[in-house]
């Protein structure tokens, strides 16, 4: 079939690839190279932020340890949260996975604005340096949320400014990425790729991009407010001069609640890709999963004040936010049921990506249930700022986002590098992570319900045994990631060659060679139907038939 007959985009001609090292690997405009840059940079920040967490766990091994001073402990949890949300989670799920997979899955050769894409990436190391540099001046100590008046009262020197600047930079980066991805998805889909034929990862990325664009712009404004309050005394949040500390909580959470969906929706997308591939059946409820992503995206703007039930809201406000928070569990439940129904009586192949997905399903569901518990105003009054909240957030962000990220990494690693990861090491990695994740965070529910507050360097000796156990488990949990690092190193050096489609999947990225060639597709494919109809012929025309092959194993 000739290319011009079907009205292909005029810009589909192929430019020659860059030839210098700088253009190819440093200031690259290629979405796939940028994705790898995101993985490596955010991976480094993951190690830093993880070490901060382990430092805290060392301190908490005993009720009155003196490993860290209280001030350093406060800095550690503040930067741990800041880095994990903004420098690790969001860059990996949007910048890395979104860049690596989304353009290929819609049959495009790149994102709409490659130059902006490069700019977005290079803001990440700048933001990371700003945030971690605040450690040199005594980092902010009021947690990743930096509530005034505490964040403004302490003698913070330059550090709060650095923190604001760092998060501002990564916020702008996130807004630009969102805008870029949204234009890409709206404008650059291959012929025949209607919205209801898009892979579910693209749906998730699209909704995430919308959230990044709207909510993160708001974060930038909120941070600017905190910055000018801190540096110029502009009294937005200063109660002694008519300001309102609760105002900061409103504007902060108006961003930061959508942000948790920025963190989890791409993981939902990864799960939706992995399950049908390893179960060999069409995904159950394609439209239900797709539209529930959109519903979650919209509802996420109507639930922010459930973080503030103890901050003195009106009763009607509490009721409103309680109800909407509980409603948002419905589209999430729709997804869980659709995934479980896809698994039901499927031909399940327990490879590492699916193991991580099953781990995700089990622990994320628990995290979702504690989320509904916390949404209830009377229960939250008891549980607020206790270790129960710490347990909840790690069940959804570690059990959800991080397990989802690993599922995606094991799944798309062959596509990214052209080589397989070792299955045996992968299974060790999964089981150690899964078991010690639960041993680390499950007991936190109990000490939380017993009344242990979060963000404390010392605590009542009554919780000593549990905390010692949690600390030991957390060390193993952190060590498990070394298996992955070794596996990755081994695979890049002498892993088994993957071939174009090692898992026998049907989305477009598997229809091209691994690693993906520059400009992705020799000819832009034509899409004839949805991507998950296992057992039917492939729904693509205009792709090289020798690549649309069956799995190698």
């Amino acid at each position: 079939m000739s290319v011009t007959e079907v009205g292909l985009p005029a810009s589909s001609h192929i430019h020659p690839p860059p030839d210098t090292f700088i253009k190819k690997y440093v200031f690259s405009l290629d979405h796939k190279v940028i994705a790898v840059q995101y993985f490596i940079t955010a991976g480094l920040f993951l190690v830093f932020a993880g070490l901060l967490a382990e430092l805290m766990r060392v301190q908490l091994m005993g009720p009155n340890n003196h490993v860290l001073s209280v001030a350093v402990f406060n800095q550690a949890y503040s930067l741990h949260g800041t880095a994990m949300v903004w420098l690790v989670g969001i860059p990996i799920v949007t910048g890395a996975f979104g860049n690596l997979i989304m353009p290929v899955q819609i049959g495009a050769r790149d994102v709409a604005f490659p130059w902006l894409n490069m700019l977005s990436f290079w803001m990440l190391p700048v933001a990371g340096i700003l945030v971690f540099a605040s450690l040199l001046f005594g980092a902010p100590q009021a947690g990743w949320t930096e509530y005034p008046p505490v964040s403004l009262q302490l003698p913070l020197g330059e550090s709060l400014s650095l923190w604001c600047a760092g998060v501002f930079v990564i916020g702008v980066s996130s807004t630009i990425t969102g805008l870029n991805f949204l234009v890409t998805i709206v404008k650059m889909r291959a012929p025949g790729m209607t919205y209801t034929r898009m892979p579910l990862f693209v749906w998730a990325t699209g909704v995430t991009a919308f959230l990044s664009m709207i909510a993160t712009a708001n974060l930038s404004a909120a941070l600017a407010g905190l910055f000018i309050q801190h540096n110029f005394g502009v009294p937005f949040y200063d109660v002694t001069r008519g300001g309102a500390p609760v105002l900061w909580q409103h504007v902060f959470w108006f961003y930061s609640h959508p942000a948790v969906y920025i963190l989890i929706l791409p993981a939902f997308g990864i799960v939706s890709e992995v399950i049908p591939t390893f179960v060999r059946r069409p995904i159950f409820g394609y439209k239900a999963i797709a539209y529930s992503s959109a519903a979650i995206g919209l509802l996420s703007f109507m639930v922010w004040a459930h973080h503030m039930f103890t901050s003195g809201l009106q009763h009607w406000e509490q009721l409103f936010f309680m109800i909407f928070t509980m409603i948002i569990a419905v589209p999430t439940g729709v997804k869980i049921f659709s995934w479980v129904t896809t698994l039901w009586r499927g031909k399940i192949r327990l490879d590492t990506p699916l193991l991580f997905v099953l781990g995700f399903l089990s622990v994320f569901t628990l995290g979702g249930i504690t989320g509904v518990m916390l949404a209830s105003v009377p229960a939250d009054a008891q549980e607020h700022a206790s270790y129960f909240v710490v347990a909840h957030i790690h069940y959804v962000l570690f059990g959800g986002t991080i397990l989802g990220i690993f599922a995606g990494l094991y799944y798309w690693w062959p596509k990214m590098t052209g080589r397989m990861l070792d299955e045996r090491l992968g299974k060790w990695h999964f089981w150690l992570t899964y078991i010690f994740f639960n041993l680390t965070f499950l007991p936190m529910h109990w000490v939380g319900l017993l009344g242990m507050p979060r963000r404390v360097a010392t605590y009542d000796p009554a919780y000593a045994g549990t905390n010692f156990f949690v600390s030991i488990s957390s060390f193993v949990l952190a060590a498990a990631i070394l298996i992955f690092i070794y596996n990755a190193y081994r695979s890049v050096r002498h892993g088994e060659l993957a071939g174009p489609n090692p898992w026998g999947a049907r989305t477009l990225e598997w229809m091209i060679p691994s690693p993906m060639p520059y400009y992705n597709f020799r000819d832009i494919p034509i899409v004839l139907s949805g991507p998950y109809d296992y057992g039917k012929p492939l729904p693509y025309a205009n792709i090289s038939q020798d690549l649309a092959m069956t799995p190698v194993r």
Partner: protein
Amino acid sequence: MAAAHAHAVGDAEYAEVSGHRLLGFLFFLISDCVIFGNFIFSYLYLRNAAPVWPPVGIERPYLYLAAVNSIVLFGSGATMHYAMEGMRHDRRSQFVAYTIATIVLGSMFLGGQAYEYTHLLPHTTWAGTTFGASFYTLTGLHGFHVFIGVIFLIVVLLQTLRGTYTQERHFGLTAATLYWHFVDVIWVALFFLFYIY
């Protein structure tokens, strides 16, 4: 050189790329709207929480200068519109004249705002009260946008004089126009919130 490059791409490709850029630019304006929305929310929140408004000892901003300034800014929206009409009908001199008028009116608005800041509000400071915080942050942010808009217009005017844009190919002008009208619309909200409400 830029003109030569612009014509190196085919009409279909130019239309496609402009379509991407237009949508991207609209998304940028939406996110910019959110930033104003955040500070407007903060203003209304603080105003609602205050026992008296404006706070004791703070004068209300002077309506008449702002009203004249608004007319100047809305007038610049009209001249911008006629400038683009000129470009659409390939009347180059109309475009140039009306764009210069827009730049002059935009600069007059900035001058009026500077006069207001320095002469009309002797007791209202940025860091003094929540009123000053909201007023100077929002109108200052808007003034900054007007300033950027003026620079934007000067750049596209120079580009036009050098022949970068044609009747069919003028995405840069479209973006500048959209930005200018956006800044106008934001001012409607700010004028109402600070001078009338």
